[in-house]
């Protein structure tokens, strides 16, 4: 498993930029392998947020004073940075929100308000609860129905079944790009083409793809695409929704308040144009500033290189874990992004997580907010290691060693 890490990334130099990675946990160097849950933050992101508060803090789109002008400029620049990151046609196609979950809730309320009884929303068996529950709530309000695209045993979508599900009642197809639980990369372009052919709107949950793959929303054919900043080395509480401008323009508002209006009177209010229409209240300005810095950080490294590096680590993990007796890796072997989800016979994922933690190895154990997927796989939960740009082959080794310790402690 020897790899010259400089071939793809200078990982040691990159790691040095992450203060949280410089610590020991229970006497071991931290091996942070829970990046699908959230990523650590590089110093420049932390500093960008601090700098904003130290120097530029003011409310946006209001004041004529110097600080407000600077804060507004930073906020607008952040929007442009996100637009270029996603390949949007213009910055006005980017709505700043708390994250992917809020973005899907926004769509379930606005787009969802136009659903009629019998209309259909197509989701997949792989979805995170955040792309299931908002739609169930929309169905309760409107009488629409959810149809679920099944998966093959290897955790890839059954595209034939998907095509059969599409029909004249299909209004919305909302599907994740990369599975948080298995790492499966879904063929969004193909999915979008088929959906558009029946006149449906395509929503892509990009929470797990934005950190790992170069994104071009127009090439993907996404009408809407949502992601969370904290999974792309940015702050928590900030994310963005991309929407094709004419579609955003056609949507009713989500929340009401300041910033989302053109004119307010008690006999009626005129709403602002997108994106302001969907950004009621003072936005997360510092979050947007931090997110923009995080995006510049990953863009300087290059998403393609990051993806290749994580692919290398994933392959190594498959090799190392494949040698452990009783261990099963869920999901596809190829065509996946930075996630290794596994079960170890005789060991519950929670016990695996606790025992690995005592060796400084941080993984996720549980249902990954994808209980319908767990039911399909026939497991109550899995253990999941997920990689980021700063992980190393020696951390993969630490995981494998840790799993040997799990077997010893549990007497397997």
């Amino acid at each position, binding site marked *: 498993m020897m790899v010259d890490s400089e071939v793809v990334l200078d990982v040691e130099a990159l790691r040095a930029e992450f203060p949280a990675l410089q610590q020991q946990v229970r006497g071991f160097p931290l091996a942070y392998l829970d990046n699908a849950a959230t990523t650590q933050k590089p110093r420049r992101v932390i500093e960008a947020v601090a700098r904003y508060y130290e120097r530029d803090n003011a409310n946006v789109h209001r004041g004529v004073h110097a600080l407000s002008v600077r804060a507004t400029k930073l906020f607008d620049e952040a929007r442009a940075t996100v637009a270029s990151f996603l390949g949007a046609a213009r910055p006005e196609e980017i709505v700043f929100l708390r994250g992917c979950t809020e973005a899907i809730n926004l769509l379930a309320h606005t787009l969802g308000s136009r659903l009629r009884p019998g209309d259909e929303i197509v989701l997949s068996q792989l979805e995170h609860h955040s792309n299931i529950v908002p739609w169930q709530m929309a169905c309760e309000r409107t009488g629409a129905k959810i149809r679920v695209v099944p998966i093959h045993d290897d955790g890839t979508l059954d595209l034939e079944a998907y095509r059969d599900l599409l029909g004249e009642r299909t209004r919305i197809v909302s599907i994740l790009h990369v599975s948080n639980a298995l790492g499966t990369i879904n063929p969004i372009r193909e999915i979008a083409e088929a959906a558009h052919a029946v006149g449906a709107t395509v929503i892509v949950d990009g929470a797990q793809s934005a950190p790992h793959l170069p994104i071009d929303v127009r090439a993907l054919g996404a009408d809407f695409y949502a992601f969370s900043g904290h999974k792309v080395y940015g702050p928590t509480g900030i994310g963005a929704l991309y929407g094709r401008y004419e579609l955003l323009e056609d949507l009713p508002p989500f929340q009401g308040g300041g910033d989302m209006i053109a004119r307010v009177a008690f006999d009626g209010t005129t709403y602002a144009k997108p994106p302001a229409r969907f950004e009621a209240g003072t936005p997360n300005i510092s979050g947007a500033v931090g997110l923009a810095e995080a995006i510049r950080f990953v863009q300087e490294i290059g998403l393609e290189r990051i993806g290749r590096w994580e692919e290398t680590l994933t392959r190594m993990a498959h090799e190392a874990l494949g040698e452990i007796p009783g261990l099963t890796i869920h999901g596809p072997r190829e065509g996946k992004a930075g996630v290794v989800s596994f079960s170890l016979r005789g060991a519950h994922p929670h016990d695996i997580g606790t025992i690995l933690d005592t060796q400084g190895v941080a993984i996720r154990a549980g249902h990954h907010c994808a209980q319908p997927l767990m039911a399909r796989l026939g497991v109550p939960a899995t253990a999941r290691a997920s990689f980021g740009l700063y992980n190393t082959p020696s951390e993969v080794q630490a995981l494998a060693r840790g799993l040997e310790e799990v077997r010893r*402690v*549990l007497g397997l």
Partner: protein
Amino acid sequence: MSDLRELYQEVILDHNHRPRNQGELPDANAVAEGHNPLCGDQLTLYLKVEDGKIADIRFQGCGCAISTASASIMTEAVKGKSVEEVREIFQRFHALVTGEAEGQEFFDEFDSLMALAGVKEFPVRVKCATLAWHTLQQALEGGGVASTE
């Protein structure tokens, strides 16, 4: 590492591998379900309560080693006890696993309950150790669903 040995000691592993009183209880007169939403663990508890005492008890479900062993040990500890005694044991057990009490003197008659004392060094696992007990409480209060959240 000694904390880990303390947590996964022989008694726990034994109850995890060979849980006691596992299965359904056809003549149960109290049933409750327990969920740990955090990890998806779930457990169904069947009780036969007669004259204010737990005449029989069984459990079914899937969970981690700690929650399975704790459920198994609990069934042994409460069988034959009165409802009041069970409440008192739970209080003491809760204090033990949260580190609020040493509990040594309380549990002389239930060595196995003491085996779960190691949980106090792993605060996120306290819910695993108490899931069965919360479910038992729920069953005694008329059934339904208990949750650790």
